[in-house]
């Protein structure tokens, strides 16, 4: 477990910035009320075995007691660094993104299941969409009852969406909460390791 260096911090922030915009500041300066300390601490990003965790500092302090090899996970896993050095967000960071999302998409109840099976969001399944989305922006996907389902990348801008063929892809799938079931084994393996 170690803090991110400058290059890594930039990579992580840039990726989250795509989803949250200037709300990234809220994520970084979020006060934490965990631990025995009276005054609130902060959250910080820690790298452990290629994975980036969003942890309160009091938890980091206590986690230093655990040997590096024995430490399976701490705090919230935000994403991981690939072997090539790219940063990928994982589904565990969904709550963080959903609370601070800049661009949102609401799905019709009929197309929710399709998205939860890792399919892209089609125009036909779109319930609502926020304004001023540009292609390439990070988008958080909600159900009509405002339950965050996952996130992805916008393939079309909001304006283009208005006059689009219903089978056209609007949001490219990146992660969804269905992964918790579909990839249960992988997550277990990681913890066992």
């Amino acid at each position, binding site marked *: *477990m*170690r*803090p991110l*260096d*400058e290059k890594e*911090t*930039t990579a992580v*922030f*840039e990726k989250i*910035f795509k989803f949250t*915009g*200037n709300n*990234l*500041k809220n994520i*970084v300066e979020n006060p934490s009320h965990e631990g025995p*300390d009276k005054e609130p*601490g*902060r959250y*910080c*990003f*820690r790298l452990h075995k290629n994975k980036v965790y969003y942890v309160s*500092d*009091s938890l*980091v*302090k206590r986690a*230093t007691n655990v040997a590096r090899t024995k430490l399976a996970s701490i705090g919230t896993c935000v994403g991981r660094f690939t072997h090539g050095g790219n940063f990928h967000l994982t589904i565990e960071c969904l709550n963080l993104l959903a609370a601070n999302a800049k661009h949102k998409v609401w799905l019709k109840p009929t197309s929710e299941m399709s998205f939860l099976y890792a399919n892209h969001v089609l*125009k036909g399944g*779109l319930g*609502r*969409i*926020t*304004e*001023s989305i540009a292609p390439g922006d990070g988008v958080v996907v909600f159900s009509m009852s405002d339950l965050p389902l996952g996130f992805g990348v916008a393939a079309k801008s*909001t*304006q283009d*969406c*208005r006059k*689009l063929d219903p089978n056209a892809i609007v949001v490219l799938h990146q992660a969804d909460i269905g992964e918790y079931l579909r990839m249960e084994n992988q997550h277990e393996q990681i913890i066992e390791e």
Partner: protein
Amino acid sequence: MEMETETQKPFQVDMGNLLAFNPFHNFPSLPTSRDELVKECIQEGTKLVQAIADSIFNLPSTEDADGPLVKLPTPTTKLPREKHLPKPKPPTKWEEFAKKKGIKKRKKDKVVWDEQTGTWKRRFGYDRVNDDKDIPIIEAKMTDEPGVDPFAKRQDDKKKRVEKQEKNRLQNLKQAAKIGALPSHVQLAATALPITGTQAPPKKVTKDELGNVAGMAATSTASGGKFDRKLPGEKPAKKQGKHRKFLPVVEGSGIGSREKEQTENVLNKLISKHSHEILNVDKAVTMYNVKKEKKARNKRNQEGKSSSATNKLKPKKQLHKKNGKKGPGSSKKGKAK
């Protein structure tokens, strides 16, 4: 060589080389230890140096700002040559051929009379006689191939001749280097030549590269060069390896100030990079349009108010409200349908 006659033991002094000898010196008894020998030698040497100093002050001197100046006579002692005499160069291919055929070198004038311009011009080099540039017309011959530019061909031929001569020169140099008839500096250049002519000459190792290699070798020990004995005057290794250093996991109470600073730096950079995106033109335009519509509607409404009777306001107000809700609602939510 001058003989010192004043002292009973005459020294031979060569003023040109500032040398003095004592050919008549004899040890009365062989010195027993090395120390004594050194002592005696120093004593004898002092006498010789004194003899040189004496004879220098006997020479006619001129006064200068720094003191008296003396011009030394030409040296008389012949010192041996440091390097051996250079070997004679082997004859080049052409020289061998010329000897066989009996061709003799003829002196040629450096300048030649140019009939075209009516001036004296150099035989070779810049602004020479019969320069390619000065030929405006080349007469066609029966042997000329159609489609070949005679001017380009002339230039090409010349280039080829020059290249051939360069090749011959290098070949001759190589032959001479084999025998060892080249001075050392030429030899270096000649041995660096490609052997077959197709290979590129080997690259010289630059000072920086050498430093890098030396640094790498110095740090390739178990301790990374830390505990190795340094040679006198050895400088620290030039190329230091890159050691990644990370901020401490926990610094003071929880998140450290340095980490905070780094995070803030990155965040500010990111936000300032995207600061130009704050103004969303599309959104601004729709907002402006909506406002304009509202204003127009209000105006219309007021006109209606003033014209119509006051007690008939109620239904109209409702109508306006309905309209107002519909307008911005559709644009804000941007229903994708």
